[in-house]
């Protein structure tokens, strides 16, 4: 197979999937998936329940074999970190579990301890390091789930709903950590429902439907077009005029009973506050990323994803 993206004889591709198909019983869960995962690149998978995101992630991580097609891995083996959708019920403390995981990975005890301490501190879990995880909430378990995957500077990080159950502060800290990992060359592939995480770290977004990648948006399109649609009502014409002068406004459509604003996502918070302060009310806020994909429809909250087991 020809390997694309080689620079100075060193391939940037970590995993290449070619026409991969996965069949369970009579059901084709993945169809003709061709995908390259490159070093230091972040890929976000979006799609509705049952679209095949979790199966694709497991296949990328090497946990599931394609029924047909190929999965090529750079150098034959990668150091992979994987965050399953649900963390297993374990009767260990985070310290015991993470240290054992590091030992299994072949990490040196001292460096593993330092890394664990750092991650626990960054995610606000240092005071729970020696508490049994059977007493943990979903969010706390998710933090341990993330730490076990990020330890040991993996080449490939596969995340299934990484923000699930995390509070805002932890989400921000995780974004910060993931950006750092990406900069150090870790390839990240994640299924995600939070537009903010996509905006922050994704280099490309793959839209999945019925086990197929139906749309791919990457690079400039993603950066240039990150917008949010705000539908509002209750503002008089002068207030609308004043708001429309904001530099964050990309488009404005005044309807009979409401207004539709297309705004740059980073300006959305300021504009929402301005609308409310001017006496208007918000009908809806839909991030559409400028990818010409109705992301509001695809980016469902993680809580509704329980059935996404394919």
């Amino acid at each position, binding site marked *: 197979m020809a390997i694309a993206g080689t620079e100075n004889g060193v391939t940037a591709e970590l995993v290449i999937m070619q026409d991969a198909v996965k069949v369970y019983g009579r059901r084709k869960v993945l169809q003709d998936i061709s995908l390259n995962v490159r070093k230091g690149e972040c890929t976000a998978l979006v799609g509705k329940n049952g679209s095949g995101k979790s199966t694709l992630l*497991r296949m990328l*991580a*090497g*946990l*599931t*074999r394609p029924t047909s097609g190929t999965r090529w891995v750079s150098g034959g*083996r990668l150091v*992979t*970190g*994987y965050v*399953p959708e*649900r*963390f*297993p*019920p*374990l*009767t*260990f403390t985070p310290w015991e579990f993470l240290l*054992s*995981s590091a*030992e*299994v*990975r072949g990490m040196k005890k001292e460096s593993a301890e330092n890394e664990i301490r750092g991650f626990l501190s960054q995610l606000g879990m240092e005071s729970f390091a020696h508490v049994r995880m059977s007493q943990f909430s979903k969010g706390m378990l998710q933090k341990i789930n993330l730490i*076990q*995957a990020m330890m040991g500077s993996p080449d490939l990080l596969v995340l299934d709903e990484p923000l699930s159950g995390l509070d805002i502060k932890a989400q921000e800290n995780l974004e910060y950590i993931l950006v750092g990992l990406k900069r150090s060359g870790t390839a990240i592939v994640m299924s995600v429902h939070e537009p903010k995480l996509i905006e922050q770290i994704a280099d490309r977004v793959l839209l999945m439907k019925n086990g197929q990648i139906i749309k791919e948006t990457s690079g400039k399109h993603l950066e240039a077009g990150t917008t949010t649609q705000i539908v509002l009502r209750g503002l008089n014409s002068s207030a609308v005029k004043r708001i429309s002068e904001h530099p964050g406004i990309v488009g404005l459509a005044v309807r009979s009973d409401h207004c539709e604003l297309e705004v740059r996502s980073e300006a959305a918070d300021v504009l929402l506050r301005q609308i409310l302060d001017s006496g208007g009310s918000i009908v809806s806020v839909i991030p559409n990323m400028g990818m010409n994909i109705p992301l509001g429809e695809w980016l469902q909250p993680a809580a509704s994803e329980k059935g996404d*087991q394919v």
Partner: protein
Amino acid sequence: MIALARFLLKSYTRKHAYFAPLAATLIAMFLLYSYKPNPVMDSYAVTSVFLFIGAAWMGLTFLNHVSPQQEQLHIIHIGSLKKYLFSQILALIIPVILFTVIFIVFPILTHMFNRPVYLSELLMAICGHVILGILGFMLSLFFQTAWMPNGTRAIAMMLIVVIVSLGAKSIISRFPFPVSWIRWILPPVSPIMDGLINSTVFTPGQVWGALGYGLVYILLLCLIYMFISVRRDART
């Protein structure tokens, strides 16, 4: 693999799923030695069969105590499914060795035998226990949830195999000659038990031959298990 085997054993013991097979196996041994004196090799033959049954039971509870997500994480951490499977087997050898020590040492320390145990007998008994113990958990590998999602059916089928293995000698003797080759498919519990019981009647070569047959059978089971298992996906 040693690190993962250690973690798996810790995880297993913390879930207390070991308690029923451990208790049942020890109770069986205490019942056997509830009176004395006892014949040496006959007693060791019986306790090695106890270990075969106990190891099969313990193997099944051990293999099924790991949730699919936990299995996924272990495979990722250790780097391959094959290494994970070997770690499981490695972990299961530890209780077999512990049981062997108990079963061999207990009757000697408590003077349960009618005469001193000779070194050659001790070696045969140790090998018999270890081989039948490993054989027990090797059988359980084929009846774990990863292979048979219906747990009740898996237990029933494993029990049938265990029972048929124990009674193989008398069952096979009732078979007509053309189908007597079935004896080579069944786990060699009966020949090993026979060899240990008749160690004073059989030549040492015959007894060691039976034990060697058990070892070859284990290796074949392991090869078949690994050949099929490495082709499966991690559980979901």
